[in-house]
């Protein structure tokens, strides 16, 4: 009872305290929420500090044999995610999902490429993830015999080149040797060995090369069906005399641009190594690549080597220049970059004009299907056109816009989802240009629409030229008479193709692009006029035509200064 009394006393006092209980409950809730927030901040802070201290953890070993990007991806997940993102949201294999045909969109391309495989199948490009797959299914490859040189850029091939090179040099080429050292000499030798072999044979070599993950043959992106979807080899089994295709081939992956030991950006493509050395040996100024000019001032006791001589910022362009360039790539000769005279369009043309095939005949890419002229095919000279532009001159690299830095927590990561800067204007352009997104987009679209308008004119001039040449042929003009016309046709088509095959719609160097198209129009019209003359009657003499003499614009009597003064 006593206890009961003692409790009753305070309860009467408490009876007016529910407010106090509520206040205490409120304080409790606020303190709990506050603690949660502070803990969250603490954990984020901890995460950022860890990220800043340790940008990656090397959980998987990668070496010179690791063409499979999967183990790299375990060490560098952000970069691997970006690389995979070049496939888009989901991998769209198959002919139905191939991008739009350029031949349907621009019918004049069929006439430009008449007699060449590009007139069969030529489409808009897809992301890096598709490069090997799409090459396997394009009708250019499935319907026409192509050279293994095509795989110089479309496959991760350094191990295959090294193995074939070591084989040809009579040296050991087991997996351990292949994994230990890059061995540029062997890679170049292997490249020369396989460059002229047929595509299917080199593809089989690529498939059978070790990729660093033996027993794991699940490709990061799927493989194309053998022989493509259409054409004579579609769905057919591999002939028994072909080398056994085992293993897994990869599109260009980590090892093609990075040293597996140090992760530094590195040149691996033999074609580029030889091409840039030839450029350095020339006298052409290269203000956008100062390390070449520095090498020229040195003692030149060895060829220019980008992996030793180029700066890190230059390398962020040069690695792209391993493939996004003009080159010769077919069965008559080894793959070659035409940089011996410089990187300008005329200098590349002069290089090809001076070149002879091993049999001594003059160089050309294809005989035009309509006129029979021996003409050139421009590949995709992005590196060369960029070299003529304001961005290159200002020290802006390919990666600055196509792989801009992005923030992952406290880390700065170069985006490996290589794509058009227009898809990421924030990171790509605004690092330097203090303009809003709409303004920047409009600037780019202005440049591109002007280039496209000029290209349409050049295309009309080109088809008019072809018509005129065909008419001249039909009226009986001889090959000898047509030779100078063919020479003009070659120049006109090379210039038009140079800009239409280049993938920036003139943005990489806008004035240069319109200048080149202007020259194309001029050569097309010159060829057209010359072809017309071949079947036109002889021109009459124009000496006898009356000429208007120069007279004063203002009659003398109305002159503002009277003649009597």
């Amino acid at each position, binding site marked *: 009872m006593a*206890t*009961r009394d003692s*409790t*009753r006393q*305070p*309860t*009467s006092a*408490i*009876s007016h*305290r*529910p407010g*106090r*209980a509520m206040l*205490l*409950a409120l*304080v*409790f809730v606020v*303190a*709990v929420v*506050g*603690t949660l927030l*502070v*803990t*969250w*901040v*603490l954990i*984020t*802070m*901890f995460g*950022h500090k860890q990220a*800043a201290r340790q940008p990656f953890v090397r959980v998987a070993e990668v070496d010179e044999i690791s063409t499979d990007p999967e183990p790299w991806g375990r060490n560098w997940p952000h970069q691997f995610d970006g690389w995979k993102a070049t496939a888009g949201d989901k991998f769209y294999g198959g002919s139905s999902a191939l991008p739009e045909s350029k031949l349907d969109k621009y019918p004049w391309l069929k006439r430009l490429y008449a007699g060449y495989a590009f007139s069969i199948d030529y489409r808009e490009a897809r992301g890096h993830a598709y490069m090997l797959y799409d090459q396997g299914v394009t009708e250019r490859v499935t319907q026409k015999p192509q050279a293994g040189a095509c795989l110089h850029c479309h496959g991760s091939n350094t191990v295959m080149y090294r193995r074939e090179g070591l084989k040809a040099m009579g040296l050991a080429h087991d997996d351990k040797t292949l994994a230990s050292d890059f061995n540029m000499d062997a890679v170049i030798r292997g490249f020369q060995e396989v460059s002229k072999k047929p595509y299917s044979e080199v593809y089989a070599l690529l498939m059978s090369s070790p990729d660093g993950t033996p027993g794991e043959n699940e490709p990061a992106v799927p493989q194309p069906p053998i022989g493509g979807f259409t054409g004579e080899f579609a769905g057919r089994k591999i002939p028994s005399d072909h080398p056994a295709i085992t293993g897994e081939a990869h599109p260009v992956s980590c090892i093609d641009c990075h040293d597996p030991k140090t992760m530094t950006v590195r040149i691996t493509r033999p074609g580029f190594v030889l091409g840039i050395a030839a450029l350095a040996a020339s006298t052409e100024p290269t203000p956008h690549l100062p390390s070449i000019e520095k090498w020229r001032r040195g003692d030149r006791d060895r060829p220019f080597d980008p992996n030793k001589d180029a700066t890190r*910022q230059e390398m962020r362009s040069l690695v792209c220049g391993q493939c996004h360039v003009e080159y010769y790539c077919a069965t008559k000769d080894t793959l070659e970059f035409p940089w011996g005279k410089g990187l300008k369009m005329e200098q590349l043309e002069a290089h090809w004009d001076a070149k002879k095939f091993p049999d001594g005949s003059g160089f050309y890419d294809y005989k035009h299907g309509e006129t029979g002229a021996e003409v050139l095919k421009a590949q995709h000279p992005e590196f060369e056109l960029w070299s003529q532009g304001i961005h290159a001159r*200002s*020290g*802006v690299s390919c990666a*600055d816009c196509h792989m801009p*830095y*992005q*923030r992952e*927590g*406290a880390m*700065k990561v170069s985006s490996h989802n290589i794509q058009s800067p227009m898809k990421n204007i*924030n*990171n790509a352009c*605004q*690092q*330097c*240009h203090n303009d809003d997104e709409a303004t920047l987009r409009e600037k780019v679209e202005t440049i591109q629409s002007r280039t496209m308008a000029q290209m349409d004119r050049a295309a009309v001039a080109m088809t008019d030229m072809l018509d005129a040449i065909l008419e001249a042929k039909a009226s009986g003009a001889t090959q000898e008479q047509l030779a100078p016309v063919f020479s003009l046709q070659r120049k006109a088509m090379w210039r038009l193709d140079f800009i239409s095959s280049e993938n920036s719609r003139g943005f990489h160097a806008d004035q240069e692009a319109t200048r080149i198209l202007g020259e194309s129009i001029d050569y097309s019209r010159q060829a057209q006029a010359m072809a017309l003359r071949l079947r036109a009657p002889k021109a009459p003499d124009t000496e006898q035509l009356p000429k208007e003499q120069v007279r004063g614009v203002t009659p003398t009597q109305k002159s503002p200064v009277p003649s009597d003064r």
Partner: protein
Amino acid sequence: MTEPPTAPATTADSAQKKVLSARAVTVLSVLCAGTLGVLGGLGAFTFGYGDGAAYLTNNPASCANCHVMQEHYDAWVKSSHHGVATCNDCHLPHDFAGKWITKGDNGFFHSLAFTTGNFHEPIQIKERNRRVTQSACLHCHADYVDHMLPAEPGGQMQLCVHCHGSVGHAGRESGYADRD
């Protein structure tokens, strides 16, 4: 006590409620004290771990504490004003109230932005902070440029940094600030 045997039901219920309420208050008080203690301790630790006190100083290195400003700090180190002006000299007003209000304002919103990750990349200066910077230029250079200032306060003019962007952050004009 737990089972009052005799009293009428209503009285017993109300008495029980009062007893419980008294106990609830006691329990709540203890809980509050406990959570406030945890909050205080964790808060103090987090403040220390995040080097919170550094933000109250003028030391430019502390601005790069939270990683985002690292490139801007690096660019300042290489700039021409490196020897004469620190972050606070250009990015905070020079009067006492203005300085601490701006510091608090930016400090809070910068922390919020970086913790949530919700901010524009590359980072861009806010309108208010741009005005602060412009006043900072004039704080030192007004004597040399007074003939270039608008006749009336608030009149239109180009900001000093429109042309002189690199004085505070080297490479700002050509965009090399974010390169390494």
